[in-house]
């Protein structure tokens, strides 16, 4: 092994019940480089890195780190080996301060926390050195997502690391925060830190990495020098075939107003106003996209429109009818179809069969039941028809939906909702966590729904998705709509600023 290789993972295998997450992956990372791990959801990136960090135990394979074979049984071992990881879901305790989070696990249990001042001084010093200024006494839960991520990186640096793993770090950031982060990572690498960067976004790979390893279906497909490759090649390696990246043009002009929202306010269970005076309209044959960083009121807006959260004040008109304290069922009878953000919590019932999940709204109606008795053969036929139409890959519609991949589960949800031929289609994060093939399919179907005449309200934190599908884009920040823009890619910077709270100048 040459001197400049810091990490070599050989033939890594990790299986979970029913799933092979890593099927013999090889990875070689050089000292001081930024190495991207690129792959679709479910390709095995996070599992591989979680194994390196001691969260999972590999079934087979060896890890050679700094020239020595190592056994990493727990995160504690990883920290001892000077490996740090910034997880996709932050590993910070929200009720504790920044300083408390950083010293967590660093003391023996019987010790008094007497060194807090020294820890805070160290945090300030690191902050100065790396330009990550954070108040050590701030409570983590009150920081913005971007700041919390800085705390995570700071925590790794505080523990002392030579290798930093970042798992999809840009998923929660605005474009400006993303470019700030990427610039900062480059600085860290220049100081000699080795960085492994997990992502499924091609632009980020091109922008930040020295080398990239592409994973597909639990195997490493290729390791390339970033300078010698192209996004198109990477996409092909990642998916295993050529990807259609263009979407068809819209046909026809918007028609009547289907959804009219006027000064809508929604309060969460803590009484905070999470949707604050929002007004907009969605017309027939129109897709309105709502962009914004996660947690700025989009979820609550969607839930309120679907009748799942009380409307505090304001008016919502669907097909001219005023919604007020309506149940989800009443809203859906008015022509709303809802593809919710929380697939497992809201859209499907995991242990139920695929066919039962298809009739979740309508099992009580003819022809699926008569006189209170379910007609199983009708339900099965219906499910099989939709499975064919929407290309859901499964063994049998009688299997529990939990046995399907995320992408196929989402296809079931989309098929169920679209088949109701809604007047208004409300889709929230329709392609989160699903593979490129299914993403493309779902997006095509949403466009087809618009061309059929539906009004579509699309909520997504993926700007790329918003640009692809929307006819108009509204940007939400802290519960307010801060501006409207056309889907013109030259306005990306402007949208980024609006997502960070800068109002659009008139």
């Amino acid at each position: 092994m040459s001197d400049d290789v810091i990490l070599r993972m050989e033939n890594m295998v990790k299986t979970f019940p029913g799933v092979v997450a890593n099927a013999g992956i090889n990875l070689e990372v050089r000292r001081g480089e930024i190495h991207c791990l690129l792959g679709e959801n479910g390709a095995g990136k996070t599992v591989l890195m979680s194994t390196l960090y001691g969260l999972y135990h590999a079934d087979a394979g060896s890890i050679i780190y700094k020239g020595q074979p190592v056994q990493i049984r727990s995160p504690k071992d990883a920290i001892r080996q000077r490996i740090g990881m910034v997880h996709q879901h932050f590993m910070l305790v929200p009720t504790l301060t920044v300083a408390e989070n950083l010293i967590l696990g660093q003391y023996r249990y019987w010790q008094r926390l007497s060194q807090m001042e020294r820890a805070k001084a160290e945090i300030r010093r690191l902050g100065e050195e790396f330009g990550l200024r954070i108040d050590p006494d701030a409570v983590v839960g009150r920081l913005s997502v971007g700041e919390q991520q800085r705390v995570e990186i700071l925590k790794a640096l505080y523990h002392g690391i030579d290798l930093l793993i970042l798992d999809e770090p840009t998923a929660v950031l605005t474009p400006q925060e993303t470019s700030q982060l990427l610039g900062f990572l480059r600085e860290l690498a220049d100081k000699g830190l080795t960085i492994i960067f997990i992502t499924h976004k091609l632009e980020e790979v091109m922008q930040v990495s020295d080398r990239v390893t592409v994973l597909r279906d639990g195997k490493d497909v290729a390791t390339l020098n970033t300078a010698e490759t192209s996004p198109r090649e990477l996409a092909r390696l990642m998916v295993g075939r050529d990807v259609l990246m263009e979407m068809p043009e819209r046909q026809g002009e918007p028609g009547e107003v289907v959804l009219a929202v006027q000064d809508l306010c929604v309060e969460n269970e803590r009484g905070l106003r999470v949707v604050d005076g929002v007004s907009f309209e969605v017309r027939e044959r129109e897709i309105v996209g709502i962009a914004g960083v996660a947690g700025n009121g989009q979820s609550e807006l969607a839930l309120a429109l679907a009748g799942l959260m009380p409307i505090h004040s304001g008016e919502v008109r669907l097909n001219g009818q005023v919604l007020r304290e309506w149940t989800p069922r009443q809203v859906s009878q008015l022509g709303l179809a809802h593809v919710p953000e929380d697939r497992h919590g809201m859209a499907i019932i995991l242990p139920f069969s695929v066919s039962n999940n298809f009739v979740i709204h309508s099992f009580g109606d003819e022809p699926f039941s008569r006189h209170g008795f379910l007609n199983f053969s009708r339900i099965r036929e219906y499910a099989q028809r939709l499975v064919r139409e929407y290309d859901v890959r499964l063994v049998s519609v009688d299997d529990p939906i939990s046995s399907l991949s995320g992408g196929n589960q989402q296809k079931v949800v989309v098929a169920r909702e679209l088949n109701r031929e809604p007047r208004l289609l409300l889709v929230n994060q329709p392609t989160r966590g699903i593979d490129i093939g299914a993403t493309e399919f779902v997006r095509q179907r949403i466009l087809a729904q618009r061309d059929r005449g539906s009004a579509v309200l699309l909520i997504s934190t993926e700007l790329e998705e918003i640009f692809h599908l929307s006819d108009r884009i509204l940007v939400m920040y802290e519960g307010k709509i801060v501006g409207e823009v056309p889907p013109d890619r030259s306005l990306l910077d402007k949208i980024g600023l609006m997502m960070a709270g800068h109002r659009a100048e008139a």
Partner: protein
Amino acid sequence: MDTVWIAMIPAILAATWRMATPLIYAAVGEVITERAGVLNIGLEGTMLLGAFTAFAAVYATDNLWVGLLATLLVGVVVGLVFAFFTVTVKANQIIVGVALNLLGLGLTGFLFRTLFLGTKNAVRTVPVLNIPVLSDLPVVGEMLFHQNLMVYGTLLLVPVASFVLYKTAFGLAIRSVGEHPRASDTVGISVSGIRYAAVMIGTALTAIAGAFLTIAHTNQFVEGITSGRGFIALAVVVFGRWSPKGAFWASLLFGVFFALQLRLQAMPDLAIPYQAFQVLPYAATIVVLLSLRGRSHAPSALAIPYEA
């Protein structure tokens, strides 16, 4: 009539702290358990086991220290069993808690009838500390300066529990495990180790709360002597917002109702059945819990087993 009431105030105040004492021990223990993310609703059963153990041990040895040590031991063992089922086996914490309550009630009743029925069963009690002069102060004299040692013990317990929870690495680990066990795991904290410890501390203190009833407050064991105090302690934890100091003040609030209830029962010229007053502390519990909205102060991982 007015003078009768005024004359009662010192006694009511003194009884308030005394009646709050078992709630304080149990609730502070439960605060520590719940801050680590484990919900032990088996306080009533644990308290009964502690009450019986203390009584039996003092009866047998006539030594209060032996009584307290035996109570602590039983408390720790109960915690070990509870933690085994809820942390290691990851059983539903409510179910295990209910089982613990039933076990406490049944086992102590059985053992008491088998071993003590028909005996003259009074035991030595924890001595009262009477501070001369000060205890003769008007109104507050009796409350502050004429109590048994276990009542004064709460003045030590609450600051110590606060110190452990907020100023030691162990306390930080407890709080982090109850909020975000995975984050704690990733920095090398043993989630199950911390939860075992927090559960055992909780049950040990709860057992002591039971001991107070049989070897300090009274001098005997009666079946079901806790009469719902374990459940009230659960309400105290919520009302005290999961902090030892909060549990202390919330316990005193409930103590007032217990004290009032005792006094009102003893008023001969009130034409109200005494059962109506006995309801007071329990009715107060319901009112207090209804007045608290949501559970925004509860540890996020409360009652959720940790899957590594």
